């Protein structure tokens, strides 16, 4: 199974895609099996916090997982999603193959050939796979929520002390205790989940 670090790296990565591959993410492809498979892999990966099996993808996208459906899904993945580099195939054993998205943010690019050589030019905004399908552990969400909680509680504590609702001794004890907890949360967010909070909480 992949480490949490690897999953976070995939979320933070912005992958460049040529127009012919980027189309699988756009609305124009929403009825295509290819896009359904893509989003199904994302959802299943978020649930399992790791790569997913073909049978699971087939079940999610077609409602069945018999050999016929699995072959259909496998062919679709191999012909388009693997070729475009949207999905990665991981072989855990000869009979255990699993799939995972290579990234969760994609930039459409246009390749330009000139006498100076090849270069690429970004087109439009970065496309993000829906955030609620990102493979992020429960601990991260809880840390973000706790961070908010402690920040708000400290604000209230300061206001109550200014309003003479609590004595200095009590204020200092609680302030020290809550600040320490907030510092520990921030430290974990900055080390284990570095860069993730800003990305996830961005509107």
């Amino acid at each position, binding site marked *: 199974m992949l480490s949490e670090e690897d999953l976070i790296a995939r979320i933070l990565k912005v992958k460049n895609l040529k127009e012919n591959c980027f189309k699988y993410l756009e609305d124009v492809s929403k009825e295509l099996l290819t896009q359904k498979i893509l989003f199904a892999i994302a959802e299943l990966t978020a649930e399992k916090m790791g790569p997913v099996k073909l049978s699971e993808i087939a079940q999610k996208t077609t409602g069945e997982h018999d050999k016929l459906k699995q072959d259909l899904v496998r062919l679709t993945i191999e012909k388009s999603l693997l070729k475009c580099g949207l999905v990665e195939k991981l072989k855990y054993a000869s009979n255990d193959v699993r799939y995972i998205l290579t990234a969760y943010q994609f930039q459409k690019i246009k390749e330009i050939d000139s006498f100076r050589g090849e270069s690429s030019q970004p087109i439009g905004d970065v496309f993000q796979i829906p*955030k609620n399908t990102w493979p992020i552990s429960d601990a991260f*969400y809880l840390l973000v929520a706790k961070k908010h909680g402690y920040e708000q509680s400290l604000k*209230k504590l300061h206001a109550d002390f200014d309003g003479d*609702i609590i*004595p200095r001794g009590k204020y200092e*004890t609680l302030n*020290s*205790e809550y600040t320490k907890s907030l510092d520990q949360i921030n*430290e974990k967010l900055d080390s284990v989940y570095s860069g993730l909070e800003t990305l996830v909480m961005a509107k």
Partner: protein
Amino acid sequence: MKLLVIFSLVLFSFVMINYSDDLVYGQFSNQNTLKVSFENNVLPSYEMPLIPGQTFTLTQNHSWVNDETSRYNLESYTLDGEKVKISRTARGDFTLNIPTDSSHNIVLSATQQYALSVEGTNDFSYLPSSPTNDNWFDAGTEVSVNVQKTTEIEQNKVRQEITGWSLDKAEFWNIEDDGSTSFTTPPIILNEYHQVDFFTAYQYKLNVISESGETTGSGWYEQGVTVPIGIDAGGDGLVLNSLSDWEGADVTYDGNVAQVFIDGPVTVSAKVEKNYSLVIGVIVIPILIIGAIGFRKFKNRVSVVEEKPVERIVEKVIERVEAPEKKYEDGYDKKLSEYLSEQIQSKLDEMKSSKIISDSKYSKIK
């Protein structure tokens, strides 16, 4: 006659073909060429025509891949027997303008290089540094890695300390605290790819503070240790200071020994009280006694003043007028804790409604 004409035409054709071949041969034999070869045949040789009057620029990558763990890097070229060193760099192309007035031979020399990767810290340097200013070194070179032992993560609060290192994840060594600020590995011979991993531990700052006197115990400690702290409260002349309590999280104090459990950066402060007993004993009481005697003599009459014990007089003198103590609401801790829970829940709800968190994960967490 017809046959004679045909024979003449065929003969003419043969003559023309031979003439044109001679022309082509003449053109090649007159053309200048550049022969490019590589020392030790690290790349195949090739030849390029040089057209007089036109400039010709030879272009060659500074580095190219040899196998999975090594590469070649250009270090010099020999043009018609004259060797010239190349300013070495890892990336980009080496270019050389070749005179086209005559043919030339150029031999490019390249050195095999291996990478030395360092993980676990960003605050390090190679000794000596790479000839290509990256982490690649010429085959056979001996290289050490110098690393700063401590990296401050949060100023005066959290830092990372290098505690050990390994080579190729096979051999492991501890780094002893010898008081130095940096550590240098023994030389590593670069005859293959090597990886150096440094292991780190977080350390937290303990600040022991006091408004007066000198404290002990301040410093950097690893998580989970218990540190004894203390204070020499001192005094100001006849006014003595005495420790009444310690304030701050995770302090255990039984009246004699104080200890702090390190679970993050922490500041503890000593609560020091002024002890006026010596002032009272040496100055106030004699003054009061003298004053009382003097007063009695001055009045020169027998009074019915009730004798009061000295202690009570002193108490009255030093009695402080204090404002009536304010009554504060009870159970503030609990209310603040409930407020914290509400805020955590509201943030989780907000993340769910803005589709940051999936329904299933929300149900598990809430």
